[in-house]
């Protein structure tokens, strides 16, 4: 019998805000332990939480980017459990009226595009960070109360690689929207993976196994791959699967049982009495909607269509949005946008890395790159001179035409003048000239190099090649 996998993901993402979800403590990674804490996020008695408006905006924005509805009513609930990293003994979350519901994410997978439906993206709070020692644990509550968005998919993913590509696409969208920095190293993205398998053709789902708290996408891919094989193996051998929670051991590369359904938690959810519901108005939603931007996949496709860029170039500009914006201005109206893309990705990028600057610091107008390409294509300068012109543009901010004019860098395409250079080169280098006449093609490059040198790089290299051949061939 053949089996198929069914995967759903719950991805937790820390929102990029200045303060925590319910109090004014800084939402900041890497501070000294227990310094960004106050009575609210320490769960001391008698305090009142007040929701962070920016976190609600970013949640709604995320919903819009994930094609979700943003309902006109959302509320918070208490999820009760004891754990040392959870100072209030409950986590504030959204159970039955989340801030966003029912969307989808389109992402590239294999040769085509796949769609995974989003069940909801709801707002909750992060817990403290535990450090484990030999005989005790230590807790830092700086992270407690940081706004955390939980993005829940429908079980639409059918394999480990597909889950991996969805996560990458989701991360790109969240980074694009400025919703989260998605820094995996800082634990800003964590993932729970729900996996079941069933015989192909069966409509009901198999027993769901959850792998908790994955902190890397490649880990999700490996764990899902392992778990699918394991479950199919159990069924093939006539065994049965029970609903359970498992833990991924990354070092060994296996999952192990943590708890089964019998000792599943009883969270006793109830509405939080301290937090009033959120009822976004049309005006508020319109304001959020104004910051909805083009999604990475849409941008990639547009760059490929409008500027005839190969996928790899478009991906560079999608991956670095500021560079992409710059390219679009530079390539606007350019006859050869691909050439403009090369200048932006290679020369400009290299200069920015070298100087540690960003595109905002570039002194010349973005359109100057288009002009530079125009000068090369029009034969006014050759590509070697163009490199020098670019360096001067970067230093001075002057237009390429002005630099060419000022420094007398115009390409020499006057055949009389070039012929003189060629004759000089041949006379000065009888050996290579003879070699070429005897059929050694590469000798021509040497002579060409001499001519370029004599003309201080300004000679039109194609014309030089042809002239040399003519002279030597006659």
């Amino acid at each position: 019998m053949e089996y198929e996998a069914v995967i759903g993901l719950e991805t937790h993402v820390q929102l990029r805000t200045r303060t925590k979800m319910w109090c004014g403590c800084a939402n900041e990674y890497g501070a000294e332990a227990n310094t960004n804490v106050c009575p609210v996020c320490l769960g001391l008695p008698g305090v009142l939480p007040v929701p962070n408006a920016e976190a609600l905006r970013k949640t709604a924005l995320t919903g819009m980017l994930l094609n979700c509805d943003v309902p006109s009513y959302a509320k918070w609930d208490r999820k009760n459990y004891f754990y040392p990293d959870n100072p209030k003994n409950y986590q504030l979350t959204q159970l039955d009226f989340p801030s966003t519901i029912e969307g989808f994410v389109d992402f590239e997978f294999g040769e085509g595009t796949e769609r995974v439906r989003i069940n909801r993206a709801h707002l909750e709070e992060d817990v403290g960070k535990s450090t484990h020692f030999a005989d005790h644990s230590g807790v830092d509550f700086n992270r407690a109360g940081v706004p955390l968005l939980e993005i829940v998919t429908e079980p639409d993913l059918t394999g480990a690689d597909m889950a991996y590509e969805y996560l990458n696409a989701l991360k790109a969208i969240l980074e694009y929207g400025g919703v989260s920095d998605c820094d995996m190293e800082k634990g800003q993205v964590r993932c729970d993976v729900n996996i079941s398998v069933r015989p192909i053709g069966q409509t009901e789902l198999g027993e769901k196994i959850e792998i908790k708290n994955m902190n890397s996408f490649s880990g999700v891919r490996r764990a899902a791959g392992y778990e699918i094989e394991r479950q199919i193996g159990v069924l093939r051998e006539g065994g049965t699967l029970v609903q359970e929670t498992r833990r991924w051991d990354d070092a060994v590369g296996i999952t192990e049982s943590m708890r089964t359904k019998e000792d599943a938690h009883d969270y006793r959810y109830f509405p939080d009495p301290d937090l009033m519901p959120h009822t976004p108005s049309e005006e508020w939603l319109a304001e959020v909607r104004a910051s909805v931007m083009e999604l990475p996949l849409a941008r990639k496709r547009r760059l490929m269509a409008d500027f005839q860029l190969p996928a790899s170039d478009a991906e560079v500009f999608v991956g670095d949005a500021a560079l992409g914006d710059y390219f679009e201005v530079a390539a606007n109206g350019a006859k050869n946008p691909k050439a403009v893309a090369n200048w932006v990705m290679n020369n400009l990028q290299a200069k920015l890395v070298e100087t540690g600057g960003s595109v905002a610091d570039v002194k010349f107008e973005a359109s100057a790159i288009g002009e530079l390409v125009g000068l090369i294509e029009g034969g006014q300068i050759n590509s070697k001179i163009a490199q020098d012109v670019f360096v001067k543009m970067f230093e001075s901010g002057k237009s390429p035409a002005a630099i060419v004019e000022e420094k007398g860098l115009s390409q020499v395409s006057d055949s009389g003048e070039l012929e003189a250079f060629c004759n000089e080169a041949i006379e000065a280098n009888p050996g290579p000239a003879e070699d070429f006449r005897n059929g050694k093609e590469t000798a021509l490059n040497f002579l060409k190099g001499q001519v370029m040198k004599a003309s201080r790089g300004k000679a039109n290299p194609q014309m030089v090649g042809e002239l040399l051949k003519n002279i030597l061939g006659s």
Partner: protein
Amino acid sequence: MGNMREDLQHAVKLARIELTAEEEARLGSQLGDILKYVDKLNELDVEGVEPTAHAVPLTNVLREDEPRESISHEAAMRNAPKTANGLFIVPKIVE
């Protein structure tokens, strides 16, 4: 109402407490009285009444994302029975 003894044991387990047989009997009957009292609400006819999570007619009580001074580290740790390296020390967490 379900089995009172089972309900009590479940609540005891969730609250991570232990009860003596005497406490179990006393608290069991008290819990029964409380639940019976709350059960009276079921006598109300709420046909056509929208369920609500809040009785207070307030919504959108929010604050802007402006940082405020946190309390000092010393003040934060003051009530902790045990601390080390700036951390709250707790029994070893293993799940």
